[in-house]
């Protein structure tokens, strides 16, 4: 009965949103804008959601979530346009799509490739939505059992895993990035005793760094610098006629779709990793499982389907920890968290108590956004692809003005701009030296949570660290954190190599008495 009630509640919510003209206009508008943002190289889903956050601060929370989720879904899907038509992915999440999408376009099948990505993205988003609907309430209920000990370790775990998995060079560069984010988070007056930390007497820093300008700076400025400095030029887009859903081809790859969706949701649920990793892992899994892996990279349909299903399923997965634990699962989800805070919705275990209907609303919006994305993709692909013709030296300066006014508008403080620029330049240099930015923003977001919960936890235990070892969930998290750290050390790698050698030495035939 409870399940039926939930399902009914979901359908009622979907219909109440869908039958409001303003909501539909917002939804389609934001999805199309998201597709454009995703299609254009240099613009990312994260930046799109961040810039739109500013525009939505004056509207209702419901309308804001429709706009932002529409942008998120549209942008993740839109990245495939650049990948297929010009072999330049619009977003990092679509980089894997270019591997088989562009060869398909070169064979004259650009329309078919876009049809496959549209349908796969739709299915991936819907599966992600399903997992959000099913697991978010469960995790939210479980999280009510967590205390300050678990929350401190969760925050730290989020930074560690985000740093470890997003680092292209060394894992500890990701951790350093996270620690810098934690430092940025502690600037200002602390929340428990209101003592100024690292403000250097500047009164504007008393309230700490505003999250949205820092995020816009960290994601927007490096992109602008990189695209212009590296003279990224977009070649002539491959032409295509119609975009069709290609259901026949999709039906032959059901296993690929299910596998990729599960990978996408799983990776999305891990803090700070995001859609690009989900796409590559899905692609790799599809290639491994394929009977003809040699066809991958030459225009294999499964290659395109796996990437797009994985990266769009990641959206639902990323929203699960965001809503239930207050820990964003991907960089665009970080922006969503910023938006939720602006609208006085505090994600975390208390969300099902303070806003009991919120998870259902988010699920319903995600469902409608995926339909809007599918319709927009099928009918508007030809028009949207034209934006790829705009040279980067023209649209990147316009993006800069959007970043500036977006950062300014939230607090109407010029000081936010003064902060945005150095953070952006720092982020650019960090990226150029192989430091990932996602852990930095995760650190900025989770820093206050880690700080407060550490001190609260120690207040409860009167300075004792023993509960970290006696509480089961805390012990597991601590163990994982320590293992993640130790696994990157040379002595550990030598030890595991020696252990494997020892284990294999026990298996030779002479030991088993067989010659």
């Amino acid at each position, binding site marked *: 009965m409870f399940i039926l009630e939930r399902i009914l509640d979901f359908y009622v919510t979907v219909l109440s949103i869908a039958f409001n003209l303003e909501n539909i206009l917002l939804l389609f508008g934001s999805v199309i804008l998201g597709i454009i943002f995703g299609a254009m190289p240099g613009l990312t889903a994260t930046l799109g959601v961040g810039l739109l956050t500013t525009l939505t601060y004056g509207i209702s929370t419901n309308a804001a979530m429709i706009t932002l989720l529409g942008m998120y879904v549209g942008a993740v899907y839109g990245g495939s346009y650049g990948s297929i038509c010009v072999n330049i992915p619009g977003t990092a999440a679509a980089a894997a799509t270019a591997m088989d999408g562009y060869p398909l376009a070169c064979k004259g099948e650009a329309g078919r490739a876009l049809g496959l990505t549209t349908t796969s993205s739709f299915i991936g988003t819907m599966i992600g939505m399903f997992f959000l609907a099913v697991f978010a309430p469960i995790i939210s209920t479980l999280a009510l059992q967590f205390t300050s000990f678990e929350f401190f370790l969760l925050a730290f775990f989020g930074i560690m895993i985000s740093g470890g998995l997003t680092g292209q060079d060394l894992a500890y560069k990701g951790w350093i990035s996270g620690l810098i984010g934690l430092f940025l988070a502690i600037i200002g007056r602390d929340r428990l005793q209101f003592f100024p930390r690292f403000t250097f007497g500047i009164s504007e820093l008393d309230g700490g760094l505003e999250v949205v300008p820092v995020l816009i700076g960290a994601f927007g400025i490096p992109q602008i610098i990189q695209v212009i400095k590296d003279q990224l030029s977009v070649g002539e887009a491959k032409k295509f006629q119609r975009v069709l859903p290609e259901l026949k081809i999709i039906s032959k790859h059901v296993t690929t779709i299910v596998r990729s969706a599960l990978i996408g949701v799983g990776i999305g649920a891990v803090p700070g990793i995001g859609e690009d990793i989900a796409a590559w892992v899905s692609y790799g899994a599809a290639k491994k499982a394929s009977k003809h892996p040699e066809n991958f990279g030459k225009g294999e349909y499964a290659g395109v389907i796996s990437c797009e299903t994985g990266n769009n399923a990641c959206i639902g997965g990323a929203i699960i920890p965001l809503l239930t634990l207050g820990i964003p699962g991907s960089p665009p989800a970080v922006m969503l968290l910023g938006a939720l805070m602006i609208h006085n919705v505090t994600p975390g275990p208390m969300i099902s108590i303070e806003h009991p209907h919120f998870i259902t609303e988010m699920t319903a919006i995600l469902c409608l956004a995926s339909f809007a994305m599918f319709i927009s993709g099928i009918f508007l692909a030809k028009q949207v692809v034209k934006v790829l013709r705009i040279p980067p030296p023209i649209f990147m300066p316009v993006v800069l003005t959007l970043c500036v*006014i977006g950062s300014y508008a939230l607090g109407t403080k010029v000081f936010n*701009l003064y902060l945005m620029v150095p953070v952006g330049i720092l982020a650019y240099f960090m990226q150029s030296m192989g430091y990932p930015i996602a852990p930095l923003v995760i650190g900025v977001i989770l820093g206050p949570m880690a700080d407060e919960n550490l001190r609260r936890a120690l207040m409860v235990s009167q300075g004792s660290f023993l509960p970290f070892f006696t509480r089961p969930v805390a012990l597991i998290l601590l163990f994982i954190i320590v293992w993640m750290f130790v696994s990157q050390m040379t002595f550990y790698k030598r030890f595991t190599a020696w252990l494997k050698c020892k284990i294999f030495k026990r298996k030779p035939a002479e030991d088993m008495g067989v010659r």
Partner: protein
Amino acid sequence: MEKVEMRKKDFITSFILIAFGIFMILYTIVEIPMKDSWGGVMNVWFVSPGLFPVWIGGLIIIMGIILCHRAIKDGGAKKFFEDLSHQKKDSSGKTLRFLGILLVIVAYVYLYIPRIDYFLSTVLCLMVFISLFYLDRPGFLKRLFTFYLAGCLLFLIVFLVGIDKQLNERFLYFMDLLVFLFFLAYFTYCRILIGGDGVLKKKLRTTLIMSIVPSLVLIPSFKYFLLVPLPVEGGFIELMNIIRYALR
């Protein structure tokens, strides 16, 4: 080779990180009370606002040391000392491009936005930013960059000395007018550089349109629909207000 170059940079940044970590810990110890009372409340170390910064600082130092060790192991330190004796010049032009982007962003945010009409600042920023990289001919970037830099330095001196306030007292939008004249001078300079080249003339026209149109769309949207008070509402925004209220 690329890996060794990366490790060389890591070698440098490891020292920066260690120094930063030490700074964090020292600042915390000196400025933030770990014990004693603050604001009438008795403090203990585990409640102190200094606990988290000390912990983060310590972790940054450890990470810096690990990074330094890895950089030395992978030949980064050796490359650093080798390169110190043989200074290489960047001939790819990327440094100038980077400096151009930096100049435009820094001038826009720190120089013009706090003092000049927001619409005019934005149009000038777009004009310069687009023209620097869209009018893609050898030598153009350097000349336009030098011209813009000279103008920015001049305005910086005017603002630092305080002449702008005196001028604005005589005529309210004097500085806006000066910056507008600078914008016209920059456009004229671009026109001179282009000469009779038809393709570049078309690009310059596009640059001018793309400087004005997005500003005309964005700024009124934020001011009149989202009701965001702009940083400086000078002569051009006043003109927008007049037009808007005349049309109502």
